[in-house]
Structure formats: structure tokens, C-alpha cells
């Protein structure tokens, strides 16, 4: 349920943005005509499969082929067959496309096989044996001595801050792997072309990441490597970096076989072999005064990067910058590190480090509110950032700060304080009932969290990317926008042309979207980091403005009236716009000081749960979320992002658990890695708050990742409100809740106890769950 008014669907020139125009590729998706990778018919294509390690750490001594198998009917590729560098080019280039000598995690690709049919290719797998010598694995990031990155952010004097504190609250919070669980598995088809070129077509978020990786491993030049995005069935970060690996594999096999090769993962392979969200351990020490002022924050973040670097330094960087939460504090120290282990490499997933650290930050604020006897909403009202406040990196928040606005909107719509009073009354009733009988066994609870999310790449990232996007008036008088931004369900193919249409003053339908093919579209940077609408949308608005001005200068008439004539008379015009920074935004990578992001988006969520005190089972009944993404381009698509992200976060909070044994993921099927069904989904109310970002021409910030930061801590706070126990490790499974209830005494009694009195003396609280 969304509280936005739905404007009329009919498009009108000049008013394309801000309206819920219909998803552009919707009809194809609704009729089954949309072509995802495995839907593409490629004549003569062979089927590729992957030979993977079964050990977490080992030396690879040999790849033995069973002589009883007919190897003439297949092609086999190993590290020795890689024409370029054996790396999946990304940040540190430490990850091989195929293991050459050292196996560093379970399910690491070692060799590839292709055959004319899938059965033969799979049969070949059963006739290959890896000869290895085991090495000791590191499976705990706290035991690892190798860091891929470390950061420290400092503001004020933390020791002095703690000295001024009346109460010190400590807590350690843990979050585990989360699987992106796009419903379309990883898929890629490689097609050899003349002149040594290769085209890969697949399910992916970042065509130019794939392009770079393909060139490097296959030793191709810019023109030889072509990357085409097929319709993509969900990404959530899982198709940010992994498709580069798969594209290299498919291309290697296609080169060896001299024909197209399809590599379509099944769900089992996708679950055991592809990246997941970084697990993290976050420790907080927070100093507050008796009257509820925040005076010191000391935070330590440890992330498990897994076997290779992938994007871990930037995941950690975002997690570090967001770790203190959206609160003013004069004295802050945040130290963080991301450690190498022999686990599956961790990678991008919606939120990118921030959900991990913001879960900890919000847990901490909720526990402090309880300790002080102050409403969690009121405490945040006192602490939350306002315009003019200074963050831990020294950034002055000059505009577009909506922390208080989202807090008020969400708490009001959810009737948070009334809900708290109701659950408190129910606790007392249970306590009194418990004296005479059994009391109730289903407890309701309500919880709150507040979050911020920096839009776009961290620090100097956007300047280094220097993204390009273009708008073209073709000689036939058609308007085409050209970007490397992918449609992955989030609505880029609808929102971006809306912005161009509005700028040009033409109907939305008049703006065509160029096919996502690296030989046709410029590098607009990756489709990640909640950056597309803000950064790429901004470039398109600027490009469209220049095109409009140019045509109007030539014709002396409004663009909409003149452009077809101008095109016919003067030929095609293409305007490319390159990102060159936002005004006044400065960042120093060496000191980690400055404007970490050009702008922040803000969200507040209120969750209501029911917990069965016999079993610890939790039902999340409702989530009310107020989110500020700056100016909203398409309200239906925007609320769709909030609703979907909210449920993904509810899953993260409650049921999505990846159990790992000696580096092997045990939840390796959809029957064991569970995500919420429609019956598990809460009623979701999404409220859009618009606090425009003045640095972008259209005022938009980011949205996609924001719900992932805010919902899990709200759900866990609601579980606490219902049960009296804090679950400091995500997910808050019934197993953990029941264990905590039993440790606290009988479930009914623990749930009935009122909130603790504020601690009067400076004291280190025991970590929750201890």
C-alpha cells in the first residue's frame, strides 16, 4: 500500500517526470515476450559447465581426466588456456578466472567443459578428478591476519567524550551472509565473431565491468569485446561483479569450441558459487549523559571479505561511513577492516556495507533509549542530523536533510507512540495473567529505526568513474537516449526517458532507449549504488538541455515543434554529457575527511510483529516506511522499490540464514535458503518524502538501497518490544528468540517484564544476548 496519489496515466508533454508512467518494457514482461538470457535461441550453441573445488583451501596438483570417457565430444578449458591475464579484473585483480595453483574457497572454478548438449557436458564433470593437497583454511575473519582494507574515521576527542558520559552502553552485533536471490539465475552466452571478437550476452548490471574483464582475460581490444545485456531477472548487487567471471568463462569456452556457448547456472550452482552479502561483526561503545545527550561513539567493524578482494574495500568504506548512524555526535571513532578468509567471496548486495553497520547502530540507539527510559522516537528526534550538522568525516550537511521529516511521517502514520502504549499495556496484562494462570502466548511488539544512505559512489568514486550519457536526435527525427545503465527491474528504462522527455518538452513515448550494447552506448558507470536516477539521470537532463538549446537556437521555435524539421535539414545531433562533480563537494581519500557523498537519502521504518512465546516464531505484521529519495520521478516505481526492499530486509531480519560448515554453504537449494512468500510479507505502507538535492538538475537522490538499511533493526526492536529479549545476531530466528526467552526465565515472564529503569551510574552494559 502506498500513500501517494496516483496521477492520471496519460502522458502529457512537459509533465513526464513526477508521474507514474507505465513501465516501458512491462507489456513484454507480462506476455512472456521479454527475452531473458536462457530464452535466446542461438543456433549451434554448445552448453558450458564448471568444474569446481570441493575444499576451502588446497594446492591444486592436477586435473585428472578419466580415460574411459570420450573426451573428443567435449572441449575442456583450464587456466593454461587463458590467452590474456588469468584475472577477473575489478579492484585488486587478485581473483583468477580459473584456479592455476591454489584453491582458496569451496566451489571455486577450476576448469570448464562444453559439449553439444547439456547432458554430455554434465556427464564429463563426473569424469574429472582434482588432485589436491589440503592447506589449513581460515574460516573466521577474527582469526584472519590479512586485511583487504582498513579505515579509521575520527572526530573530536573520544576519551574526553566518554569521560563526560553518565552512561556507557556496549554491544556487539553480528550479521551473516545474505543471498541476493534474484529469481533468474546467473546466465551468459558467448558468441565468437570474425576478427577474433567475442560478443557476450547475458544477465548483468554493469556492462562495462564485464567489458573490461573480458578484454583483460581474453586479450581483446575495445572493439573486439562486445557486451550486450539481455532482459535481466533481478540483480540486487548479485549481478554487479559476478557476471564478469561468467562472461570470461563463456568466452573461453566459445573460443575453444569455435562456436557459441551458453552458460546457464541452475539454482544449486548459483547458491553455492556466487557472491553473498558480507557477514560483519560490529562492536559499539556509546557514551550518553543522564539527560540523553550523545557524547561519544567508539565503533569497530570487521567484515568477512571471503577468499578474494572483489569489492570489499568499497563495501567496507560505505559501511564505515554509515556506521555511526544519522546522529550528531561530537566525539566519534570508527575503525574498520575487511578480512581475507577461505569463505566464498563476499560481494555487492543492496545496501553495500551499510545494512550491516546501520543494523548495529540502530540496535545500539534502541538499547540506549530503553536504558534511559526515553521513547526511541524522542531520542532520535534529539540526535538526528539537521541542516548544518557535521558528520564524522567532517562533512557539513548543507541541504536535503530529511531525517526528522521521515521520522515524523513514519511515526505518525504508524501511530508509533500509541502502539508502544498498547504493547506495554499488554505486557502488564501478561504479567498479571502469569501470576494466576498462563497469560497470553502471542505477544505484539512495535519497533523503530532511522537510516541514511549516501547516494552514488563513495568519496571521489563518481569523479573517477566520469560517467557519460547521451541524447541523440537522429537524422530521421527520432530522439534516442544512450546510456550504459541497465534495466534490472528497478525502472531505469522508464525513469530515465521520463527525465529526457520532460527536459525536451516532448511526450514520454517520443524518447527511445538505445539497446544496451557496449558497441552502441557509452559507459555510464555501473548500475549500482542507488546512483542511476541521480547521477545518470542528471547527465541526461544536462545533455537534453544542451540538445534543446541547440535545436531551439537553430529553429527559433520550441524544441517539440522544431526537432523533426531540424533533424531532416541538418542531420543527426548527438550530445554526450560527462560527469564532472557536484558543486562544492570535496573529499580526501588519504585522510578520509570531507564530503563522503554528495547527498544522503533518509528513511524511517516502524515495524509491528507478533511473536509466539512458545516457539519464538515471528510474524511481521506491518512495516510503515517513510523514505526521502529527493525528487520522485515515478511514484509507482519508487514505492515499488521501497516495498521490495522492505521485504528483502524483513527476510534478512527474520529467516534468511546461510549456514556455513568448513567454508561450504549448507543452504544450497531453494528448499533450504528461504525467502519470504506472499504469506510471510507484512502489510507495507510506503510514504514518499521529497527533499530535493540542489546539486542535481532534477533534484533526485538515491532510493533502491535505502529500505535495506532501515527495516531489519526496526523488526528486531519490535521483537524486543514483544518479548523483552534483544537478538543481536541476524537473522532473529525462532531458535535464537526461544533460546533467549528460555535464558531469561520462562517466556511469558520475560515478556511481561517492563522496560528496565535507566541505569543511574556509569556502567558498561552487558552485550545483548549475553
Amino acid at each position, binding site marked *: 500500500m502506498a500513500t501517494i496519489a496516483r496521477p492520471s496515466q496519460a502522458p502529457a508533454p512537459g509533465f513526464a517526470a513526477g508521474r507514474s508512467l507505465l513501465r516501458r518494457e*512491462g507489456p513484454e514482461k507480462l*506476455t512472456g515476450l521479454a527475452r531473458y538470457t536462457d530464452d535466446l535461441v542461438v543456433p549451434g550453441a554448445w552448453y558450458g559447465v564448471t568444474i569446481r573445488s570441493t575444499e576451502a583451501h588446497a594446492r591444486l596438483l592436477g586435473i585428472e581426466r578419466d580415460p574411459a570417457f570420450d573426451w573428443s565430444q567435449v572441449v575442456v578449458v583450464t587456466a593454461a588456456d587463458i590467452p590474456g591475464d588469468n584475472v577477473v579484473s575489478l579492484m585488486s585483480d587478485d581473483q583468477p578466472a580459473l584456479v592455476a595453483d591454489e584453491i582458496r574457497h569451496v566451489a571455486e572454478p577450476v576448469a570448464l567443459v562444453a559439449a553439444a548438449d547439456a547432458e554430455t557436458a554434465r556427464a564429463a564433470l563426473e569424469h574429472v578428478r582434482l588432485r589436491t593437497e589440503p592447506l589449513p583454511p581460515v574460516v573466521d575473519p577474527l582469526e584472519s591476519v590479512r586485511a583487504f582494507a582498513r579505515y579509521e574515521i575520527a572526530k573530536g576527542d573520544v576519551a574526553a567524550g566518554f569521560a563526560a558520559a553518565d552512561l556507557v552502553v556496549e554491544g556487539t552485533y553480528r550479521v551473516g551472509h545474505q543471498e541476493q536471490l534474484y529469481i533468474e539465475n546467473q546466465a551468459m552466452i558467448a558468441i565468437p565473431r570474425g576478427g577474433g571478437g567475442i560478443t557476450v550476452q547475458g544477465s548483468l548490471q554493469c556492462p562495462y565491468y564485464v567489458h573490461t574483464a573480458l578484454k583483460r582475460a581474453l586479450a581483446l581490444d575495445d572493439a573486439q569485446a562486445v557486451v550486450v545485456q539481455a*532482459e535481466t531477472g533481478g540483480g540486487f548487487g548479485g549481478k554487479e561483479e559476478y557476471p564478469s567471471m561468467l562472461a570470461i568463462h563463456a568466452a573461453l569456452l566459445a573460443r575453444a569450441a569455435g562456436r557459441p556457448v551458453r552458460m546457464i547456472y541452475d539454482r544449486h550452482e548459483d547458491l553455492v558459487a556466487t557472491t553473498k552479502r558480507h557477514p560483519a561483526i560490529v562492536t559499539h561503545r556509546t557514551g550518553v549523559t543522564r539527560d540523553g545527550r550523545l557524547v561519544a561513539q567508539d565503533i569497530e567493524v570487521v567484515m568477512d571479505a571471503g577468499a578474494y578482494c572483489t569489492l570489499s574495500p568499497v563495501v567496507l568504506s560505505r559501511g564505515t561511513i554509515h556506521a555511526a548512524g544519522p546522529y550528531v555526535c561530537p566525539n566519534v571513532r570508527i575503525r574498520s577492516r575487511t578480512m581475507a578468509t577461505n569463505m566464498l567471496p563476499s560481494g555487492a548486495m543492496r545496501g553495500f556495507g551499510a545494512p550491516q553497520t546501520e543494523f548495529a547502530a540502530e540496535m545500539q540507539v534502541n538499547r540506549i533509549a530503553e536504558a534511559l527510559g526515553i521513547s526511541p522516537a524522542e531520542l532520535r528526534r534529539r540526535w538526528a542530523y539537521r541542516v548544518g550538522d557535521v558528520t564524522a568525516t567532517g562533512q557539513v550537511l548543507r541541504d536535503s536533510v530529511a531525517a526528522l521529516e521521515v521520522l515524523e511521517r513514519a511515526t505518525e502514520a504508524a501511530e508509533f507512540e500509541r502502539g508502544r502504549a498498547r504493547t506495554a499495556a499488554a505486557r502488564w496484562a501478561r504479567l498479571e495473567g502469569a501470576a494466576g494462570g498462563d497469560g497470553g502466548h502471542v505477544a505484539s511488539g512495535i519497533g523503530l529505526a532511522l537510516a541514511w544512505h549516501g547516494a552514488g559512489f563513495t568519496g571521489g568514486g563518481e569523479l573517477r568513474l566520469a560517467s557519460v550519457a547521451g541524447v541523440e536526435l537522429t537524422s530521421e527525427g527520432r530522439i534516442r537516449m544512450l546510456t550504459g545503465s541497465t534495466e534490472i527491474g528497478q525502472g531505469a528504462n522508464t525513469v530515465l526517458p521520463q527525465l529526457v522527455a520532460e527536459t525536451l518538452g516532448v511526450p514520454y513515448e517520443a524518447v527511445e532507449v538505445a539497446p544496451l550494447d557496449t558497441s552502441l552506448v557509452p559507459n555510464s558507470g555501473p548500475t549500482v549504488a542507488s546512483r542511476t536516477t541521480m547521477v545518470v539521470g542528471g547527465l541526461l537532463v544536462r545533455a537534453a538541455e544542451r540538445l534543446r538549446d541547440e535545436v531551439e537556437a537553430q529553429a527559433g521555435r520550441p524544441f517539440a515543434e522544431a526537432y523533426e524539421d531540424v533533424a531532416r535539414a541538418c542531420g543527426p545531433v548527438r550530445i554526450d554529457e560527462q560527469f564532472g562533480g557536484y558543486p562544492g563537494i570535496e573529499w580526501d581519500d588519504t585522510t578520509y575527511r570531507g564530503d563522503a557523498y554528495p547527498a544522503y537519502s533518509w528513511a524511517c521504518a516502524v515495524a509491528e510483529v507478533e511473536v509466539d512465546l512458545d516457539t519464538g516464531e515471528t510474524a511481521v505484521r506491518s512495516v510503515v516506511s517513510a523514505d526521502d529519495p529527493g525528487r520522485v520521478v515515478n511514484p509507482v516505481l519508487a514505492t515499488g522499490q521501497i516495498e521490495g526492499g522492505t521485504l528483502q530486509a524483513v527476510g534478512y531480519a527474520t529467516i534468511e540464514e546461510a549456514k556455513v560448515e568448513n567454508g561450504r554453504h549448507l543452504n544450497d537449494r531453494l528448499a533450504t535458503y528461504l525467502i519470504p*512468500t506472499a504469506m510471510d*510479507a507484512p502489510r507495507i505502507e510506503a510514504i514518499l518524502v521529497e527533499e530535493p538535492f540542489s546539486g542535481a538538475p532534477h533534484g533526485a537522490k538515491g532510493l533502491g538501497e535505502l529500505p535495506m538499511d532501515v527495516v531489519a533493526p526496526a523488526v528486531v526492536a519490535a521483537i524486543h518490544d514483544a518479548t523483552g529479549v534483544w537478538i543481536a545476531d541476524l537473522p532473529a530466528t525462532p531458535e535464537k528468540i526461544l533460546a533467549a526467552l*528460555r535464558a531469561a526465565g520462562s517466556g511469558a515472564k520475560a515478556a511481561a517484564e517492563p522496560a528496565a529503569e535507566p541505569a543511574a551510574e556509569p556502567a558498561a552494559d552487558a552485550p545483548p544476548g549475553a
Partner: protein
Amino acid sequence: MAAPTATPTETIRFTVNDTPVELDAPGGRRLLDVLRYDLGLTGTKEGCGEGECGACSVLIDGDVVDSCLVPVCQVARHDVRTVEGLADGVRLDPLQSAFLEAGGTQCGICTPGMLMAARAFLASGAEPTDGAIREAIAGNLCRCTGYTKIIEAIALAAGAVPAFRHMPSTGAVRRVAAPPNGGPAIVPSPTLRQALRLLAETGGRPIAGGTDVMVALAARSLPRDGPLLDIWGLEELRGIRLEGDELVLGALTTYAELRRSRVVAEALPVLAEIAATIGAAQIQNRGTVGGNVINASPAGDMLPLLLATESSIVLASVRGERTVPASAFWSGYRRTVRAADELVVRIRIPLVPDRRVRYRKIGTRRALAISKVVMAVAWREDGSTWRDVRIGLGSVAERPIRALGAEAVLEGSRPTTETADRAAAAVEAEIRPIDDVRSTADYRRAVSGRVLRRIVLEAGEAGAR
């Protein structure tokens, strides 16, 4: 290595979106593969290949099923409908239009399956409440939308969905052939007599709705102990009826049939309650009681009830029939006393006057969940005293078990707090749960006790009113 001999094929005739199809394929080829790769209808998607995501949902004679779990031989002489059969070319039908307008499709990969499940629901004429819509699409996972706008779209379309548009069929038959070795062969068995003879001769493995066998095939974990034998069409194994003081379920009774049955609603409504907790619509349309019994999973959702009601299982073979009490049927982890030539044909559930039955399943989520603990408790009340107490438990041992110790505590007792506590302690002491990927031994033990305690207390409170 000698080239493997090609899997034998058969000719299978059915319709897809009103077009007659004549297919040459091994009978065990997945309907999903036939649609996507043999007929080029790629609107139907694959997300998991084991009936957990619903992306491959299609309709067979109007019932929604996961096409990854349907061996194509079982659609012979039936009507299959896919997403391609909804719109008229590019003109969307009212349900598709509602999805587009409400924002019910994002990445789109779950959309075709979601539309088919929604279509089956709307055609059923059920009241389109929020809860009913959620249940109808619980077998279709979506990772983009949070389901909110999908539910909104289905509610919007309710009442507006027309009968299926019949495609202008020329009557021309589409003749296609699957690629060689496109799936396992399945031996047809048109009558029970033939099935039993084949079973005796080949020692084959019966396949009914495929919700377990097809999953095992996909995982390559099916023991290769003989050919697959199709029993899905055996009318002799269908039907729900009262015989004397027993409720008799044909082995091929589906969970959907249990939920719809008037006989069940009157004689033993808990059966319908249990059926509603199994999988979701797609699984309930194909999964059978006999399959649940013979799959012998310690987590089988029906099995604790069969133990608690002292039901029996009727096995048939060319040698004749024999009846085995449920308490003697499951002999170990996924093992039963069925002989290789025997087929489960019926389940007999004694109906006892004034018997009360309570059932509770603890799963990780509300649909598509394999139980962590499943419990059924049956008893009679003699005044306020409990008699003939029977407790069946699943997922707490290597096979479904009776909790004899707890039964002894409750037998002849009144449902007081003290009794409930003692029964809980007894059940916790007598079960032997394990840690696995779904839960922990500690949790299963504690919850078994607490759920039993709750059932006893609630019965006591109800009695006191």
C-alpha cells in the same frame, strides 16, 4: 566408452493454448523443457527446478502446477495453458493490464508464473480478500515487489477477468520432437492390475504427482532401482469416502482434494487444515497423501496425524492386499515396510466419536515450508479426563514417531497446568531430534514440549468454559 542407448520415446498428444500438439519425447521429460525448448514458449521461466519458486507455473485443465515437476506423459489428453495464452497478441488482458498499472511487475522473471497462479485463483471464484490472494500466490516467489503491488493488481482485476480467449486455432497439429535423451522414460500403467504386474516384473519406482520424485530426479538423488512407473492416471487409487467407521482416502488423493472435500470437512476437518499447510497451490494440486506416506520423510506433514489417529495403510501387489498400521509402517530413515512389488493404494483413518484432534506445524515460513516440528494430538474426553491419548510427531527422530511417554502422562489425567508441564517434560525426554540445516536439536526438543503443553492447556481452558 560405448555410446549410451537412446532413451525410448513415446508420442504424447495434448493441447497448449488451444493448439493441438503431438510430441515425441521420453515420458519423463519435464513439461517445462517441452514448453521452453521443444515448443519455443519461453514465457514460462525456470527459477529452481524443484518446485520451490513457482516461476514455471502453468495451468493444466485450469489447475496451477509447477511445470518443472510434471513429467510430460502426464499431460497427455489434457489442456495446458501458458502466459502466451493470455494476451491477444499485444493487447493485454485485464489481469495483465492491472499488473502494468499497479506496478506488479519489476524484473519480470516471476511475472508469467505469478499471472498463471492469479488466473487460477480468479477463475476459482473465491472472494479476493487480501489473505486469499496471498495464499493463492504463496507458491510464487518474487524478490522485487514485496508482493504489495501484485496483490493490489490481482484485487483490481477481480471480476474483470474473462474466460480464456480461445486462440484462433486452425486445428493444425504442431508436431515436435524432443532432443535425444531429453529425460527419463516412464512406463505407463493404465490400470491397477497392469501397474501391479509391472511392479512385480520390473521392481520399478511409481511416480504420481511428481512432487518428490521429480525433485529427486533433478537433484540426481533418485536411486536407480528400476524404471519409473506412471500411476498418476489410476482411477482405482482416487476418491475420498466413508466406509463404516472409517474415512478412506485413495492413495492419489491430492492435498487440494482434501481441502475441497465435503466428506473431509464433516468427518475429519483437521485433514484439510493440514493439507493447507503443505507447499502452496502448485504442490497441493499435485502432491498426494500416498506420496507423503511412501516418501517416508521424517518431516512428512500428514504422517503424525496418521499415527495419532491409529490409521492404517493398505498395500497391494499381485499377491493380494495387506493392511499395515501406521505405527508399524515407517521402519527407519526414509524406509518403510513396503515390499518392492507393493503399491500404497489406500489410507484408512478410523473415525472415533467425540475424538478431538489438534495439529501444529512449526516451519520457517508460512508457505512452502518443510517442518521443523510437526505434531498431531488425538484424545477423547471422559468428563474432564483424557482417554485414548495418541501423539504423533514429525521431524524429531529419523522417522515419524508416537510420543508414548507423553501419552502415558496424559492418559487418565485432567488437562491441568501441572499435567501439561509433565507431558511436556516427557515428550522432551523421549524424542531424539538432530541439528540440521533447518533447525537445531535444542529448538526441536523445547518446542515439542511447549507446543504439547500449549495444546493441553488450551484444551483445559476450553473445557473450563
